[in-house]
C-alpha cells in the first residue's frame, strides 16, 4: 500500500521532466496510472464489501511521536478511493484533449497526479497526523491547479483565496488533531474508536469539535467559508470537475463522516452540523438560480449538495447516513458529468453563458444525452440514481426522532425547497443550453472528439445503471461504507420502489416544483441581456466574502504600517529600539523578581596587566566618542576587540580568543573597504539625539554590569561542563572540548549555523548585485 502512494508522488515529479513528450498524442497514455490504481482498489472490493473487516497496511514512520504511515482500506475509504481514481481516469483522458497543445501540459498532469496522491492519502490514512499532512498537500496542489492560468489575475486571486481559506482550516485542524491525540493518547483512527467516550467527556471536547468543524467547513465550502469554491471555477474545467465536485471538497465530508462515530455526542456535534449544513444547502441552492455562467450555477449547486451531506451526517441516524453515503456517489457521478459537459460546450463555442446557448444537443448528441441523464438524476427522477438517494433523504427526516413534530415539517419544507432548487439548477445547465434551436452556426462549433465526450457518457451510464440496479452499488460499496460511518451493519438496502408513501409523494412534489421553478427562471432568462451579472440583493456587501476581504485588507494594512514603523531603514534606529526594549524588559524582571546582591567571594584581585588592558579600553572608547573621523572610530573599536581578546586569554579561553581576534580583524577590514565610499562622518548637529543615545547606551551598560554581578551570586551548575569534559575523549576521541561540542555533540546545530551563514552570504550578494543592476538601467 505504501508502494502505490509513493509511486504516485514519484510519478508526479517525473511528469515534470516530460515536457518534450507533452505535445505528443500518445501522452494520454498516462491515464493508465489512475486506471491502474482504480483496478488495484477494485481488487479490494470483495474483501471489504461484506463490511466485516478492513484491510490494514502498517508502516512505521516516526514511532517516537506515534506517527505512522498506516493505511486502512475500509468501506468509506474504498468508496472515496474508487471515486478518486475512477473519476480521475476520466479526467486524465478528458484533459488530454481539453488542454491539447497547452505548453505546460506536463506541469498540469504533475499537479493533478500530486493532488490525486494527496487525496488518496487523506481517505486511506489511519493516522490522523499523516491524514493532516495529506490534507495540506491537497490544499497546496489545488492551489497550483486553480492558478494554472497564472497569467490571469482573477485566477491568481482565486487560487490565493482557496489556499488561504483551506490553509487556515488546516491550521485549526492540526490543533484539533493534536488535542485529540493528547486526550486519547493515540493518533490511530482505529484506536480512537475505542476512546470515543474519553474524548466526549473530556474538558477539551468543545474545543476539539469546534476546531475540527472549521477545518472541515473550510475544505467543504460550508457557510461562511463557501465563497472560495465559486472563485475556484477559474481553474480549467477538468480540474473543477475533479477537485471541486467529486473529490477535494468531499474531503471535509469525509472527515466529518470518519469522525462521526468517534466524536458525535448526539447533541452539539449533530446540532451544529444540521444548522450549518441546512443553512448552506438552502442558501447556496437559492443563489445558484441567479447565476448564468454554467460553471457558476454548478459551483453553487455543489455547495448546496455539500450542505446536504453535512446536514445528513448531522442527523446521524442509520437511514440518514445511508442516504448521505449514497448521495456522495450520486452527486459525484452527476456533477462530474455536468462539469465535463460544460467544459465541452465552452471548448466548442467559447462561452458558458446559458443565455447565449441553446440547441447544442444537435451538434453534440452524445454529450446532450449524458447531461440530460445527469439533470434528471440531480432532480431525482425515477430510474436515475438520484431518485434513490432523494427517497432516502425524505425517509430519514421522517424517521428521525430528534425533533418535535413541527420541527420535522419545517425540515421537510427546507429539504423540499433545496432539492427543488438543486433540480432547477440542474435543468438550467442540462436543458437550457442543449434544447431548442441552435444558437450558433454549425460551422462555428468545434465538435468534441472521442476523449472529450466519452467520460461524461460513461459517468451517465453509471448513473442509469445504479438507478435501475441499485443493489449493485449497495452490496458493492455503499453498505460497507455506511457501516464504517455508522459503526454497525446497515439493516436497509437500496431499492427502486419503496411503495406508496408520503416519501414518494414528496419526491413527486419536488420534481414538480423543480420543473415549475425552471419554467419561471427560463422566462426570466429570455428577458435578460447577456453578459450581465444578475444582481442578487443589496446585502452583498455584508456577505462573508466582503467581510473576510475587509479583514484581510485590514491585516495587510496593519502589517504594512507596523513594518514601516519598526523597519524604517535606519540601522541606528533598529539598534536603539532593540537595546531600549532589552533594557526595559530585562531591567524590569531584574528589579521586580530578583534579590539584588553582589557576591565578592569568588573575585580575584586586579593584576597589573589586566588593569592596563582596562585603561586601554577606556581610552579607545573615549577616542571613539570624541573623534570626527570614521577611520579613527573603526580602529578604536578594533582596539577594544583586541583588548577583549586579551581578557579571554588571561582567563583561559583560547578558542574564543582566537575567534574573536580573527573576527575583529575581518570586521575592521570590511569597514575600511566601504569607508572610502561613505559620506564623511556625520557631525551630530542635533544635541537631543546625542543625549537620547547616551541615555540608552548608559542604561544598557548599567544593566549588563548588574547582570554580570548578579550571575556571580548563583553557583554555576558544573554538571553539563563536567559531562563534556569527561566524555569528550572517551566517546568522541578529542581533547578540545569546545571543538568536540561543535562537530560532534551539537553537530546538528553547527550544520544549521553553516546554512545560516550561507544564507547571509546569498543575501549580501543578491542585495548588492540587484542594486547595481537597477542603477545601471
Amino acid at each position, binding site marked *: 500500500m505504501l508502494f502505490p502512494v509513493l509511486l504516485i508522488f514519484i510519478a508526479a515529479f517525473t511528469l515534470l521532466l516530460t515536457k518534450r513528450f507533452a505535445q505528443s498524442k500518445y501522452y494520454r497514455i498516462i491515464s493508465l496510472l489512475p486506471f491502474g490504481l482504480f483496478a488495484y482498489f477494485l481488487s479490494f472490493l470483495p474483501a471489504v464489501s461484506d463490511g466485516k473487516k478492513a484491510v490494514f497496511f502498517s508502516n512505521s514512520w516516526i514511532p517516537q511521536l506515534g506517527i505512522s504511515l498506516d493505511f486502512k482500506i475500509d468501506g468509506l475509504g474504498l468508496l472515496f478511493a474508487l471515486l478518486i481514481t475512477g473519476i480521475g481516469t476520466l479526467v486524465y483522458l478528458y484533459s488530454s484533449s481539453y488542454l491539447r497543445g497547452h505548453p505546460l501540459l506536463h506541469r498540469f498532469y504533475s499537479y493533478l497526479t500530486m493532488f490525486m496522491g494527496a487525496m488518496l492519502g487523506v481517505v486511506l490514512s489511519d493516522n490522523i497526523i499523516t491524514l493532516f499532512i495529506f490534507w495540506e498537500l491537497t490544499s497546496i496542489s489545488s492551489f497550483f491547479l486553480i492558478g494554472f492560468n497564472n497569467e490571469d489575475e482573477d485566477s491568481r486571486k482565486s487560487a490565493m483565496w482557496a489556499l488561504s481559506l483551506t490553509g487556515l482550516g488546516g491550521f485549526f485542524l492540526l490543533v484539533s488533531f493534536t488535542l485529540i491525540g493528547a486526550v486519547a493518547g493515540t493518533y490511530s483512527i482505529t484506536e480512537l474508536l475505542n476512546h470515543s467516550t474519553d474524548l466526549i467527556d473530556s474538558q477539551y471536547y468543545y474545543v476539539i469539535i469546534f476546531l475540527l468543524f472549521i477545518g472541515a467547513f473550510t475544505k467543504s465550502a460550508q457557510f461562511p467559508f463557501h465563497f472560495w469554491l465559486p472563485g475556484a471555477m477559474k481553474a480549467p474545467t477538468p480540474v473543477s470537475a475533479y477537485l471541486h465536485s467529486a473529490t477535494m471538497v468531499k474531503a471535509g465530508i469525509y472527515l466529518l463522516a470518519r469522525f462521526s462515530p468517534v466524536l458525535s455526542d448526539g447533541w452539539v456535534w449533530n446540532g451544529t452540523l444540521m444548522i450549518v449544513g441546512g443553512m448552506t444547502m438552502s442558501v447556496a441552492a437559492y443563489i445558484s438560480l441567479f447565476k448564468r455562467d454554467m460553471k457558476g450555477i454548478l459551483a453553487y449547486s455543489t455547495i448546496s449538495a455539500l450542505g446536504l451531506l453535512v446536514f445528513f451526517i448531522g442527523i446521524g441516524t442509520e437511514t440518514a447516513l445511508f442516504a448521505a453515503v449514497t448521495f456522495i456517489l450520486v452527486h459525484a457521478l452527476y456533477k462530474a458529468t455536468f462539469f465535463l459537459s460544460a467544459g465541452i460546450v465552452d471548448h466548442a463555442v467559447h462561452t458558458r453563458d446559458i443565455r447565449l446557448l441553446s440547441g447544442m444537443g444537435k451538434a453534440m448528441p452524445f454529450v446532450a444525452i449524458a447531461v440530460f441523464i445527469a439533470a434528471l438524476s440531480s432532480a431525482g427522477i425515477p430510474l436515475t440514481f438520484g431518485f434513490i438517494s432523494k427517497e432516502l433523504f425524505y425517509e430519514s427526516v421522517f424517521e428521525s426522532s430528534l425533533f418535535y413534530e413541527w420541527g420535522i415539517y419545517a425540515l421537510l419544507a427546507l429539504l423540499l425547497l433545496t432539492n427543488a432548487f438543486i433540480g432547477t439548477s440542474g435543468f438550467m445547465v442540462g436543458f437550457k443550453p442543449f434544447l431548442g434551436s441552435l444558437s450558433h452556426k454549425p460551422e462555428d462549433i468545434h465538435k468534441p472528439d472521442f476523449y472529450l465526450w466519452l467520460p461524461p457518457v460513461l459517468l451517465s451510464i453509471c448513473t442509469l445503471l445504479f438507478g435501475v440496479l441499485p443493489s449493485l452499488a449497495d452490496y458493492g460499496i455503499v453498505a460497507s461504507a455506511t457501516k464504517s460511518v455508522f459503526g454497525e451493519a446497515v439493516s436497509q438496502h437500496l431499492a427502486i420502489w419503496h411503495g406508496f408513501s408520503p416519501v414518494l409523494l414528496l419526491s413527486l412534489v419536488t420534481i414538480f416544483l423543480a420543473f415549475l421553478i425552471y419554467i419561471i427562471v427560463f422566462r426570466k432568462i429570455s428577458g435578460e441581456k447577456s453578459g450581465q451579472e444578475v444582481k442578487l440583493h443589496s446585502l452583498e456587501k455584508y456577505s462573508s466574502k466582503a467581510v473576510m476581504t475587509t479583514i484581510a485588507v485590514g491585516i495587510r494594512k496593519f502589517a504594512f504600517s507596523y513594518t514601516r514603523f519598526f523597519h524604517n531603514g535606519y540601522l541606528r534606529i533598529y539598534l536603539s529600539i532593540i537595546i531600549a526594549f532589552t533594557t526595559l524588559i530585562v531591567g524590569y524582571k531584574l528589579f521586580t523578581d530578583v534579590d539584588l546582591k553582589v557576591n565578592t567571594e569568588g573575585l580575584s584581585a586586579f593584576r597589573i596587566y589586566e588593569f592596563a588592558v582596562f585603561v586601554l579600553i577606556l581610552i579607545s572608547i573615549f577616542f571613539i566618542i570624541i573623534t570626527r573621523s570614521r*577611520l579613527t572610530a573603526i580602529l578604536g573599536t578594533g582596539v577594544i576587540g583586541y583588548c577583549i581578546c586579551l581578557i579571554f586569554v588571561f582567563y583561559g579561553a583560547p578558542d574564543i580568543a582566537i575567534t574573536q581576534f580573527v*573576527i575583529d580583524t575581518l570586521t575592521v*577590514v570590511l569597514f575600511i573597504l566601504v*569607508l572610502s565610499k561613505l559620506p564623511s*562622518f556625520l557631525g551630530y548637529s542635533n544635541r537631543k539625539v546625542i543625549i537620547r543615545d547616551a541615555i540608552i547606551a548608559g542604561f544598557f551598560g548599567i544593566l549588563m554590569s548588574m547582570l554580570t554581578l548578579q550571575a556571580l551570586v548563583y553557583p554555576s551548575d558544573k554538571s553539563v561542563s563536567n559531562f563534556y569534559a569527561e566524555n569528550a575523549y572517551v566517546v*568522541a*576521541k578529542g581533547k*578540545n572540548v569546545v571543538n568536540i561540542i561543535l562537530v560532534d555533540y551539537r553537530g546538528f546545530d*553547527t550544520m544549521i549555523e553553516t546554512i545560516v551563514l550561507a544564507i547571509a552570504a546569498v543575501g549580501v550578494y543578491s542585495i*548588492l548585485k540587484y542594486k547595481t543592476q537597477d542603477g545601471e538601467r
Partner: protein
Amino acid sequence: MAKDKDDLERKTVLKLQNTFLRTASNYLLPLLLLFSVFVLLRGHYLPGGGFVGGLIASIAFVLHSFAYNTRKTKLLFRRDPFFLIPSGLILSFVSAVLPTLIGKNFLSALWFAESLEVIGSVGSALIFDLGVYLVVVGVVLTILFTISENV
C-alpha cells in the same frame, strides 16, 4: 573642510597598498593558508577548528586583496569563491549522512581504526569540520568581493 577630510581618509587607505604590503602578502598568503589548515587539523585536540581555520584562511585572502585589489585576488580562484559555500555544505551533509548507511544515527562520528602520523585519528568529524571551513571561506570572500565591487 569635509571634503578635505574625505580625501585624507582615502589617501590613508591608498597608502596601505604599498610595496611592502604587496611583497609581504606574497609570502604571507601561502603561509597563512598553511597555518589555517594546521588550525583546522589540530582542532580536535587543541584550540582551533574549522570555523577559526576558515576565518584565518579568508584573512589571508583579505590581506592579499588589500595589498593589490580584489580583482587580482579573484584571479587566484578558478571559480567564483561562492562555489565553496555549496561544496562545504554538501561535504558536511555527506559526512553527517554517511553513518546512517551503516545503521548508525545521523551525525554520529565514525573513525578510522589507524590514526595518521601527524594529524591524529581521522574520522567523519574531520570531514564535517572541513565542510565548515569551506563554507566560512566562501561566505567571507563572497561578502568581501561583493561589497568591494558594488558599494
